[in-house]
């Protein structure tokens, strides 16, 4: 078992606390089947290549982005354990969240998790700062609306634990002038609003996820891009997968992880979305 990142520094009154959904993402992304998929897709079968540097330089480093990281537990895990998940630490990571507090929390979680991996690895020089031979390279946490600030075709792996709880109304989506911290502590109302953005999904809990899925074709890297999206039973996962498959013959959507054993009203699953390269040449 890979260690879960420490999030003890995070103010959970205004940033989503890691829960069953977060842990399902960790388990799925580090599972044998998904690491095999990611290693084959991003050429990370270089686990033995660390001793043969000539093998480097053949496969471009993947760019992994989590949308809505909250505490940063998932992207912190993926970044810290990049060697295990991708078979190589040559991985770039970043995160985008509407909540500025979540951005700051994520940055710290990522830093701590990478430092923990570095200090537990005897081969790493004690003078090394935040970098380690096993972790990826975190570019930063940005405040933004889903994938809006990302360049088209730039993302190789997109991870999304959405606001998936069905609610009567979607909270008002924040704009640039929201949450401009003036130094004053957030009120209870501010905190409730921030948390509502992390879970409230509107009709079927799908209003935000539908927007994200509609943007995948643009934001994912044309050939090797893929996405992991968490859904609950009320999100109608089969319909979501059908929608993705309707994007074109090369699109795939499959459930690759689920929390079915503890089936409650909120049964969770992870859907992997990707494009399969056409086999026949035209």
């Amino acid at each position, binding site marked *: 078992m890979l260690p879960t990142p420490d999030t003890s520094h995070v103010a959970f009154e205004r940033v989503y606390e890691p829960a069953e959904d977060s842990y399902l993402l960790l388990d799925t992304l580090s599972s044998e089947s998904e690491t095999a998929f990611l290693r084959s897709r991003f050429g990370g079968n270089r686990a033995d290549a660390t001793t043969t540097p000539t093998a480097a330089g053949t496969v471009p480093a993947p760019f992994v982005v989590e949308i809505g990281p909250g505490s940063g537990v998932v992207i912190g895990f993926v970044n810290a354990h990049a060697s295990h998940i991708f078979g190589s630490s040559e991985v770039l990571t970043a995160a985008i969240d509407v909540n500025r507090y979540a951005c700051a929390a994520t940055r710290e979680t990522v830093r701590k998790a990478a430092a923990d991996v570095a200090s537990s690895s005897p081969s790493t020089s004690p003078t090394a700062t935040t970098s380690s031979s096993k972790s990826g390279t975190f*570019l930063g946490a940005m405040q933004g609306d889903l994938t809006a*600030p990302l360049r088209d075709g730039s993302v190789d792996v997109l991870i999304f634990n959405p606001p998936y709880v069905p609610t009567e109304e979607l909270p008002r989506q924040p704009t640039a002038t929201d949450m401009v911290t003036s130094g004053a502590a957030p009120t209870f109302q501010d905190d409730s609003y921030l948390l509502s953005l992390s879970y409230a999904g509107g009709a079927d809990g799908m209003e935000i996820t539908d927007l994200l899925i509609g943007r995948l074709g643009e934001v994912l890297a044309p050939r090797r891009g893929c996405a992991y999206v968490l859904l609950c039973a009320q999100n109608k996962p089969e319909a979501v997968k059908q929608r993705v498959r309707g994007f074109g013959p090369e699109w795939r959507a499959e459930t690759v992880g689920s929390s079915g054993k503890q089936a409650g009203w909120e049964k969770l699953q992870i859907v992997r979305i990707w494009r399969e390269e056409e086999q026949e040449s035209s």
Partner: protein
Amino acid sequence: MKVLSLNFLTCAVKACKSTSGAYPLHPKDAELVEDDLEVNSDLLLNIMPRIDWPALSTTATELGFPSLPAQPPTKEELEADEKMLRDLHHLLMETQMMEGKLVCGNCGHEYAVREGIANFLLPAHLV
């Protein structure tokens, strides 16, 4: 946020995305800090194919770094040129933008960067 992140970012205004002016965003009044990290040449070599070189050249010049060569170095050139490797490592890995603005060359919108976090949320009239 690392300078390298600017290579992946664009204006958040939908109408700007398809325009050439929206990428790369232009740093303004940028305050930079430098981390001290070990050079990882394998990482740099594997990042090179991911980099939009003209955009990186623009960013480097605008941040006051020495201008980059017109063409991206090949793997062989980079492996043979330790100074270039170190310079790229310094620009891409060690340099962080902490304060300032990122400006869209198409619509002119300025995204604030505070304490290393850029805010790409749009004002209500642009959403």
